[in-house]
């Protein structure tokens, strides 16, 4: 094993050796630089391997042949090895990305680079306080010098100014550091960190106070290197102006080293200083994320994000009193995620010609780089399967266990802000106009591409490692090895295959998984399993219609299905949450594929992540410190915790079912999605939320929250959602939006049924689950097919398509009969059970609302079929053909299913009914032959089918007979006296179809909720925009900030400390 000391000596020797070369031998100098960095990485990697595989204790390295504390010593342990490897590798890869600049500037620049990397390793390795100072100063000087490298490329003086600002601030920092060190030495008689940590607690009286003051100066100086809010304006200027390869080092490696230095300091200071670290960290985390919101410069945005992440990790270090032995796992997970992702993103930014966020649309032609970008932002947002996810899970659980709720809330809030701007950025990449200058010549920028891809590989490798560690530490499964997820990820490798091959594989995969697991499901889960897996493969049939390769569709779709498949098998909170996040992410990518879906996909992911955070908080509260719990154990929770948990989980699940107030993401997301995606996200994905609610209600049931029966609140929410959803649907002009709003209403019914908490209510909710899947998938497909053929989704522009698209018409007709709940189709069964159910419940008022919602549904359904298929055909659509085969086929299958279920509803419901007896023993149905009896009456589906069929045929025949001599009227033959219609569509009968109702009920559809949420986001943006003006760009102002920061922390900290 090569001593870790040689990380330092190798770099120094190489740096000095470079001076011996001639100025012209630049290639040779560059080669030596790379070799040295590789050697340094190799030494670190060797140690990391040793520690990781054998678990040996840390190794001390003495210098000067004398033992510490009398001579400087270094130490390498697991954390040190990992960090130096990170630093050296980032140094190596950045040197690759910097090739042109380094070659142009020559050996001196390379020597400075080597020294910078060496000094960062030194910060990590040293155990001597003053030596730490020396390495810090080396870092400062080398960094200030390296900022100039970018001056070479751009030559606009910005980097010069930024570097000078950095030097100003560092002068203050080093003065504080030196004064602190000398007084700490005076108080303890040593400079060795471990020795000082041992000596400090033994001090008494005046010495202890003097030491505390000295330590404060050291601590605040090192923390200032972490760019805490608000003393960080200089760092942002550096991030913005420096060469991205340097920023990668500055963000990933410098941040990591400085954090480790803080960690060492906390060892000296002890627990008394932890609150200060936490406070500075969390304020920085939230503030930096808030300030990042209005950013438009990519590198500055990444700078804000870097600062935020560093703040978060500082806050985590400050929680070590409760995190204990898990600190390394949590802080390490967050740190490595941040470092790899941020380095990767900075390298990537080296490929982008312009600095606006939209300019990144240039990446669009490069699937691999897009995948890298997605991996990096998922990593930063703490999504599975990346290490940050495990870290976040553990962190939130431990915080909740100790009751540190405020901190927990702030962390989740900040994380949501961060996810907001990161995913907004991703939306730009996928949807904005690509700049004329695309990613320039990838071969030319080989270094940056190579570095980015290396970071990508590291990201996934690390996920595997963290998953394994989770298995060792907390007995969790490694989610990356979960079969459904692997299957989904496999599509990343298969993305070069044509659509039909991938589609067949996907369908086969879903069915095979069902076959493998179907024995495990109880009847309740079986319903969901069938919808998710069999139903999923049915909707996938429509995807055969697509041609080419459809890059990115299958990985996203299968990720969603993997999440769904894992969700219903999850038995404990961790598995459940992993599955929840996976399906959220997968569906987000799916929705984003729509042509105009950028803003809607963003609001979807934000609401979903917000909801997921609430669920996470709920789970964390429920476990009380344990890493996870059996979902069934939710039932054992008691006051005062239980209602809080219930509330958090219920709101979390309701974001997915788009309950009123949390619904604004749904219409856009569902309507703008691609034709075959809409049924997936509407028919299938919404059920995940209902599944969550079912699990919640089955275990926790009725909860009393300060006198409010929560289940009643839910009843009201369900009823209101049904009413408002339906009302909004009738005023839509866009057919897919109409269907989307209708889904909101339908989910309201289902929630209402569940909230009734009786046998029939649940039966009805489950019936809704099945029915909604079938008819909403079918309707979205048929409307999507029509939209595909006509090129519009505006209903008033269609009309009379019945003869041209008869199959779509039949599907729509059957669909709306089923939705409206009139006999003879299955919708009626749902209604029948439903009315029985509410008769058994006591909630009269919401019941009235639900009743009201019923007829409203008729209105929009009537409009749907009437304006699209009936009436007169437009000229431009004379040649329209029936929807494509693969889109019609699943519709016909759905028609068949609806008819079968209509006749024999018992096929499914019987088992569910019986199963529900476990939970609600009273009030079940009696199934005899074809008759179903409740306490209020009976229902015979077969008889109804026959009766309705007869009536229908009679009426139909009569109509044909009466109408044989009907006269046709032109649609636009309305005469306006000397008035030309302002907008032609206003003359169409189908425009603003329900105007009278709008007059009467319009006040109910005012977009108050939308207004609320947009005001919220505007407020956040404005706050961020105002606050960032605080960074005036004047180096002197930054010095004021720093001193003010020191003084404020001093006043606060010394007041708080015992």
């Amino acid at each position, binding site marked *: 094993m090569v*001593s870790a000391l*040689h990380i*330092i*000596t190798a770099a*120094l*020797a190489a*740096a*000095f*050796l*470079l*001076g*011996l070369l*001639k100025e012209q031998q630049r290639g040779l100098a560059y080669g030596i630089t790379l070799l040295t960095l590789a050697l340094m990485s190799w030494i670190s990697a060797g140690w990391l391997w040793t520690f990781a595989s054998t678990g040996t204790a840390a190794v001390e390295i*003495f*210098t*000067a*042949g*004398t033992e510490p504390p*009398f*001579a*400087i010593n270094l130490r390498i342990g697991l954390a040190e090895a990992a960090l130096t490897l990170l630093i050296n590798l980032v140094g190596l890869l950045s040197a690759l990305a910097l090739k042109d600049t380094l070659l142009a500037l*020559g050996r*001196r*620049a390379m*020597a*400075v680079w080597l*020294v910078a990397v060496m*000094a960062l390793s030194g910060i990590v390795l*040293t155990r*001597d306080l*003053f*030596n730490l100072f*020396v390495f810090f*100063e*080396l870092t400062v*000087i*080398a960094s*200030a*010098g390296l900022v*100039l490298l970018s*001056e*070479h490329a751009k030559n606009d003086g910005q980097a010069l100014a930024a570097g000078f600002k950095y030097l100003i601030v560092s002068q203050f920092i080093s003065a504080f550091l030196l*004064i602190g060190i000398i*007084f700490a030495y*005076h108080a303890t*008689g*040593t*400079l060795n960190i471990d020795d000082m940590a041992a000596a400090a607690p033994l001090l008494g009286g*005046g*010495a202890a106070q*003097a030491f505390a*003051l*000295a330590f404060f*100066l050291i601590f605040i100086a090192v923390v200032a290197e972490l760019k805490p809010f608000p003393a960080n304006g200089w760092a942002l200027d550096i991030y913005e102006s420096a060469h991205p390869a340097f920023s990668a080092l500055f963000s990933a490696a410098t941040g990591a080293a400085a954090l480790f230095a803080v960690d060492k300091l906390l060892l000296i200071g002890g627990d008394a200083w932890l609150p200060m670290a936490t406070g500075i960290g969390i304020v920085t985390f939230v503030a930096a994320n808030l300030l990042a919101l209005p950013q438009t410069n990519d590198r500055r945005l990444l700078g804000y994000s870097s600062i935020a992440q560093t703040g978060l990790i500082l806050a985590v270090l400050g929680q070590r009193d409760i995190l204990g032995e898990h600190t390394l796992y949590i802080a390490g997970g967050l740190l490595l995620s941040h470092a790899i992702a941020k380095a990767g993103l900075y390298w990537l930014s080296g490929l982008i010609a312009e600095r606006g966020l939209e300019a990144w649309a240039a990446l669009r032609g490069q699937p691999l780089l897009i995948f890298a970008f997605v991996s990096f932002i998922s990593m930063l947002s703490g999504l599975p399967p990346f290490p940050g996810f495990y870290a976040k899970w553990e962190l939130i659980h431990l915080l909740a266990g100790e009751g540190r709720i405020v901190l927990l809330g702030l962390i989740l809030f900040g994380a949501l802000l961060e996810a907001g701007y990161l995913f907004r950025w991703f939306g730009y990449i996928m949807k904005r106009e690509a700049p004329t200058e695309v990613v320039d010549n990838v071969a030319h920028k080989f270094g940056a591409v190579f570095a980015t891809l290396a970071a990508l590989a590291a990201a996934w490798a690390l996920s595997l490692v963290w998953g394994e560690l989770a298995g060792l530490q907390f007995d969790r499964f490694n989610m990356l090895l979960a079969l459904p997820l692997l299957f989904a990820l496999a599509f990343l490798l298969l993305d070069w295959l044509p659509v039909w091959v991938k589609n067949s594989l996907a369908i086969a995969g879903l069915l095979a998984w069902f076959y493998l697991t179907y024995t495990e499901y109880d009847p309740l889960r079986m319903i969901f399993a069938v919808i998710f897996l069999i139903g999923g493969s049915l909707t996938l049939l429509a995807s055969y219609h697509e041609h080419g390769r459809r890059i990115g569709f299958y990985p996203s779709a299968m990720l969603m299905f993997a999440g769904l498949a894992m969700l219903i098998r999850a038995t404990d909170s961790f598995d459940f949450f992993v599955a929840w996040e996976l399906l959220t992410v997968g569906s987000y990518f799916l929705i984003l594929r729509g042509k105009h879906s950028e803003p809607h996909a963003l609001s979807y992911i934000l609401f979903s992540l917000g909801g997921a955070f609430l669920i996470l908080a709920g789970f964390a509260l429920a476990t009380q410190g344990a890493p996870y719990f059996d979902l069934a154990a939710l039932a054992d929770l008691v006051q005062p915790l239980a209602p809080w948990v219930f509330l958090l989980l219920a709101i979390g699940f309701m974001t997915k079912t788009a309950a009123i107030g949390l619904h604004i993401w749904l219409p856009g997301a569902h309507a703008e999605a691609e034709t075959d995606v809409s049924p997936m996200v509407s028919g299938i994905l919404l059920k995940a939320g209902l599944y969550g609610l079912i699990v919640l209600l089955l275990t926790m049931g009725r909860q009393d929250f300060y006198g409010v029966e929560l289940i009643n609140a839910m009843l009201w929410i369900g009823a209101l959602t049904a009413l408002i959803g339906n009302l909004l649907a009738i005023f839509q002009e866009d057919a897919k939006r109409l269907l989307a709003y209708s889904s909101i209403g339908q989910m309201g019914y289902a929630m209402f049924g569940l909230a009734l908490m009786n046998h029939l209510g649940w039966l009805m909710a489950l019936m809704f689950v099945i029915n909604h899947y079938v008819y909403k998938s079918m309707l979205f497909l048929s409307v999507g097919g029509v939209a595909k053929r006509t090129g519009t989704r505006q209903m008033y522009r269609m009309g009379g398509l019945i003869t041209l698209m008869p199959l779509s018409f039949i599907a729509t007709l059957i669909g709306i009969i089923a939705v409206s709940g009139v006999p003879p189709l299955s919708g009626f069964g749902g209604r029948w059970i439903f009315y029985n159910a509410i008769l058994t419940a006591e909630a009269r008022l919401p019941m009235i609302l639900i009743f009201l919602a019923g007829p409203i549904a008729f209105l929009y359904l009537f409009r749907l079929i009437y304006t699209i298929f009936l009436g007169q055909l437009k000229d431009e659509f004379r040649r329209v053909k029936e929807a494509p085969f693969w889109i019609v086929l699943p519709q016909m299958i759905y028609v068949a299913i609806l008819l079968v279920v209509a006749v024999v509803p018992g096929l499914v419901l019987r088992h569910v009914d019986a199963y529900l007896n476990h939970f609600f023993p009273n009030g079940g149905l009696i199934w005899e032959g074809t008759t179903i009896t409740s306490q209020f009456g009976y229902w015979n589906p077969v008889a109804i089918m026959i009766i309705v069929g007869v009536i229908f045929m009679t009426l139909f025949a009569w109509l044909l007979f009466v109408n044989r001599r009907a006269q046709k009227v032109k649609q636009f033959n309305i005469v306006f006296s000397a008035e030309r219609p302002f907008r032609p569509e206003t003359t169409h009968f189908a425009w603003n179809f329900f105007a009278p109702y709008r007059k009467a009920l319009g006040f109910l559809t005012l977009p108050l909720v939308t207004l609320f949420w947009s005001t919220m986001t505007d407020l956040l943006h404005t706050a961020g925009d105002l606050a960032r003006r605080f960074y005036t760009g004047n180096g002197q102002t930054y010095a*004021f900030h720093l*001193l*003010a920061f*020191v*003084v404020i922390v*001093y006043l606060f900290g010394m007041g708080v400390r015992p």
Partner: protein
Amino acid sequence: MIKRAIALLLTLAVGALFASLLVGYVPDSELNHTARYYAERTAEDIGAANIVTAIIVTYRGLDTLGEVTVLFISAAIVGLVLAQGRVLNNAPNNAPRQTRAPVSELLSTGSRVLTPLILLLGVYVFVNGHLTPGGGFQGGAIVASGMLLLLLADPLKQFSHRLIAVLESLSGLLFVGIGVLGVLLAGGFLDNRLLPIGTLGELFSAGVIPVIYSLIGLKVGAEFSSMLASLSETNHTENSEET
């Protein structure tokens, strides 16, 4: 002036912090355990009469290596920054340098006499660093001041950057090399007992300390000289740009 008022306020707040440090300061009456170790053991273990030198070169040798590196990269960056400017400003015109009025006879003659003496003094100071106050840094600075004198006497004088760079790099390499030899042959990195400790107070004593300190002296002298040269050359280009 609000700005000045805030500046004063902040300075006073920091001053209050410093004041409490000052008030809480109690001078030691005897050496603390670290200092005691050095006082007792230096003569025996290191063999250097100057305890501060023993600490700088051996006990805290890693700091000193870092310190030398600070100078090294400062010089490199200064050179880089100013060289960049030169390329920028001077690339198009190869016009001959403008000549200045010669400096005074006194200065140029004096510098010719004094420079060798200054260099000698510098060498003396760093060679004897382990015995007397002084050492590599001080000696190096003295050597560089000799260079400064030369530059003052003849502002257009060109030093060989190449020679300076080789001197600087070789001494740095040897410093690191001796340090690593310590790992291989003696007790650890920068252990001075590669060579015999000798008798306390003699020139050839304290193991490799005189060697290292001489290298540091050369290196520091070279680095200061290189910075001076870079700065003075830039000055010409600035001037020539203005004319």
